């Protein structure tokens, strides 16, 4: 039921929202999160590498977890790979539910787990100097862990 995609192309948030809600009359709440490539410290580009055979499987598992934990009517996860320039969207998560708390919590959950349990790696290309691999942040681990502490 979840819609999972890994792609180089940009995504169309409005089209994805329409697809998730089309033909449904039981959706009262639609939450979204868009992650965007930020202009930090002279960043020229960001290259997203992934583990193709594993990626969609990992995302599907994360989405299934969200569907099992919250009464969602559906969810969409799109993650881009390849070379992205500042201002470009990287990731989209959409969650739909009868009620707002389920949609909002599941959206936050999906992002937290995606950040720690999906095989993507970011390499930053500064305008000057060699590229550098982005290091994992402990705060992302903490954010992901909160969903295993709560009954959720």
């Amino acid at each position, binding site marked *: 039921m979840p819609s999972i995609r890994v792609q180089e192309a940009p995504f169309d948030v409005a089209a994805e929202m329409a697809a998730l809600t089309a033909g449904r009359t039981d959706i009262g709440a639609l939450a979204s999160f868009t*992650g965007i490539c930020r202009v930090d410290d002279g960043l020229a580009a960001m290259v*997203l*590498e*992934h*583990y193709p*055979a*594993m990626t969609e*499987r*990992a995302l599907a598992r994360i989405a299934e977890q969200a569907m099992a934990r919250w009464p969602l009517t559906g969810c969409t996860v799109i*993650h881009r790979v390849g070379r992205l320039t500042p201002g470009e969207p*990287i*990731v989209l998560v959409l969650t739909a539910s009868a009620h707002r708390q389920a949609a909002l919590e599941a959206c936050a959950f999906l*992002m937290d787990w*995606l*950040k*720690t*349990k*999906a*095989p*993507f*790696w*970011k*390499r930053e290309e500064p305008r000057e100097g060699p590229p550098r*691999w*982005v*290091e*994992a942040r402990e705060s*992302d681990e903490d954010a992901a862990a909160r969903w295993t502490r709560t009954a959720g």
Partner: protein
Amino acid sequence: MKILYFAWLRERLGRAEEEVTLPPGIATVGALMGHLATLSPAHAEALAPGKGVRCAVNLDFAGPDHPVAEGDEVAFFPPVTGG
């Protein structure tokens, strides 16, 4: 056994994958990492404890005690940073 490397592991080792014959007695992710570390100084450095290297066996994340066997696809990579 096919071993895959991603992100800076791939770069440091100069390869995205390699075929490795599993020596007798090597039956877990942790033991396999120890074996791989003997293959070259670059392997030893990249796979050293404390580097925080993660593993997936047959497309699922796997801890050091996870079993490995001939025919598995085993991948090593840094902590993920997507999203």
